[in-house]
């Protein structure tokens, strides 16, 4: 009833933003950490799209990757372990005009935050969600995560992880109201950029799983795919990720896939051929978005609100 004003913009003169406008503190990830490249891609997109920094928010949970907001000179919300998605949904539910980037880790999203993840996908609020999947808990120094490989030795699985890993892409593809799912690898800046750009332009919850190197604890897991590009399968389509061919020409393993075909998307997500598939797996821009409901009434005038309030109070009058 006492909703916020829809238009929060101040009258500002047209400005031109450079990369520096988005650069926060010096990133303190380990040298060679995959997180650096993703940060650079997001800053580039912010610059290319000329997103006003004050209209841009980086939201994260807790983990190495979740230090992301500290390195963006925008608004930031470094929240609770596992809970970036409720925070992001909270922002979007009343401020649909803001550009929200969520950084979350495989532990953050798929372990402690799994309950929130399911429902955030269903809410389908317009934001980009970057899952930094390094198959491990980095910040707490090498414990098993839900995406750790079976047999992967970590400090909490000294005899090797017992369970098969959870597949976040496949899981997201199985959730109600899913609208955008893509995968990319941190070590291909061209593809990361193109994927995040497509995610940014998708009107809904854009889930991007980024296979992320952690040279500190899981240097082995993506090593083969880094050395041998044929172990990466490029998912292509005219409605898919349009990456500069200069950045993808080394990928000889390719598959033509219509992002409207969720069955094939699931098939690709399985990764049965042993390849890391990168590209757009699924997109449906028509799915309902929760913020279209939660923002109703934001444009009510004061008079309308007073009238509505009186009508409500009338119901209690004796």
């Amino acid at each position, binding site marked *: 009833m006492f909703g916020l004003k829809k238009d929060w913009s101040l009258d500002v003169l047209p400005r031109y933003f450079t990369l520096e406008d988005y650069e926060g503190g010096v990133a303190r990830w380990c040298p060679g950490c995959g997180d650096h490249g993703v940060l650079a891609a997001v800053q580039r997109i912010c610059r290319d799209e000329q997103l006003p920094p004050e209209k841009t928010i980086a939201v994260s949970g*807790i983990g190495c990757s979740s230090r992301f907001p500290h390195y963006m000179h925008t608004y930031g919300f*470094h929240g609770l372990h596992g809970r970036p998605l409720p925070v992001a949904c909270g922002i979007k539910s009343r401020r649909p005009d803001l550009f929200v980037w969520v950084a979350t880790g495989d532990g953050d999203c798929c*372990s*402690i935050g799994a309950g929130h993840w399911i429902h955030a996908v269903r809410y389908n609020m317009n934001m980009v969600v970057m899952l930094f999947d390094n198959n491990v808990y980095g910040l*707490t120094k090498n414990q098993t995560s839900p995406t750790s490989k079976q047999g992967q030795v970590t*400090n909490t*699985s*000294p005899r090797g992880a017992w369970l098969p890993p959870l597949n976040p892409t496949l899981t997201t593809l199985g959730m109600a109201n899913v609208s955008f799912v893509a995968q990319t690898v941190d070590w291909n800046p061209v593809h990361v950029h193109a994927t995040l750009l497509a995610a940014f332009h998708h009107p809904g919850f854009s889930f991007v799983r980024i296979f992320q190197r952690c040279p500190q604890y899981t240097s082995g897991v993506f090593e083969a795919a880094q050395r041998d590009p044929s172990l990466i399968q490029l998912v292509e389509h005219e409605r898919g990720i349009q990456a500069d061919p200069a950045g993808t020409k080394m990928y000889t393993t390719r598959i033509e896939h219509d992002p409207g075909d969720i069955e094939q998307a699931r098939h690709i997500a399985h990764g049965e051929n042993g390849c890391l598939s990168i590209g757009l797996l699924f997109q449906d821009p028509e799915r309902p978005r929760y913020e279209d409901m939660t923002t109703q009434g934001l444009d009510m005038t004061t008079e309308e609100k007073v009238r509505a309030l009186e009508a409500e109070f009338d119901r209690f009058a004796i």
Partner: protein
Amino acid sequence: MVSTNKKKVKPRPLLFPHFCKACGRCITACPKDCIEMGTEIDPVTGCTPVVIDRSLCNDCGLCLTACPEPYGLVPAPQDTEDFELQDPEDLFGARRTTAPEPISIPDERLPLPPLESMILKGNHATAIGAVLAGCRHFFGYPITPSTEGAELIAKLLPELDGMFVQAVSEVAAVNMMYGCGGAGLRCMTLTSSPGFSLMLEGISYMIGAELPGVFFNVMRGGPGLGNIGPEQADIKLVCRGLGHGNTHAIVLAPATPQEMLDLTIVAFDLAFEYRNPVILASDGYLGQMTGRVRLPEFIVKPGLPDWGVYGDEMHRRNLNTSIILIEPDLEKHNLHLNRKYQQMSDAEQRSDSFRCENAEWIVIACNTPARMAKGAVQELRGRGINAGLFRPITLWPFPIDAARSVLRGVKGVLVVEAGPGQLEDELRLALSHAGVHDLPRIERLRHHGGVLPQQQEIVEAVSELAASVPTGGAA
């Protein structure tokens, strides 16, 4: 079921015991009082189906309307006019015999050969203490600065007929504790402040259901994510805030790696003695600190209490729950818990005094700050200031009996904390409840956010206190 027969036939109730959930609606509906709640457990469903005395039944059919189950109470087919309800005994064989009464199997302490002392990190000492205390079930979620303990447990327990599960979150971990403690088994979790916050809900349920479990909270800087430095700002939480409702648990505060081990063993004994969670509250510094640790001369072989839901026939009728819907019953349960809390308060106060005899100035501190305080007391004594250290080992119950006798006649007290005064609050609350009103002057030295009080600061603060209180008489 609508009868197609023109002739008006009254439906006779036919009960299928496997589908009756004993909701009792038919009993309420029956005007002839011919249905009552059964007493026999249906071996297939585990429910106790109602029983119908057909001799009183006038086939009114109201019970059939009342029954919400599609297959529970149905009209008997017409062509079985002479249908007789079969005796369940004929249908299902002999009634199940009543399960044997569960008996408590006591713990045993098996002697260990004398072992050399070891140099251990505090968190590792805790892990070894848990293993020696017979704990074979560990549920955890990584969080700095507690994780090394869990990591060592993850290595040790699979070698020792035990198990380690990395839960998906602290919320999951505490509920696994609920399940395991509920089975009457020894279980433990190690966490740090943000994780402990998440466990509070489960701890309240465990206290309500009277289940044992050992929680180790390596307190770190807060609020919120804070940092991983040592703080003592969860004292309020562990002493006064264990989830919702009328909750308390014994809180043990170690100050050395040796105590990390010893008190972990004590914690398991207390948890089972009182059927209540026990909290160990240490700090980030202590978890990382290395020290010489002597091992005890025994290892515990856990018994099995009679109350657990152990999953065998003997424990068949046990139930763990904290839900008690009838108000007077829940009040009775709370009074019972209060009696337990009182027993803990009477019997479990623990503390340590260092040079408190003839002391005029008492420093009160626990965990790591107590180590600095001890050094300070030695230095002060060297300077001719009669200082002593009083160190609560149980923060709840506060060791008020010992505190009273230590504080008798002293001139001043300095409470030293790496936190916002929650130990002082416990002290003052305990003194107030004990009716001690002629208090000596109480001063404080506090740090926050992971900063520890230093020995020199304590020396200065006590010296200042001594200089400011007029000599001659206790205030």
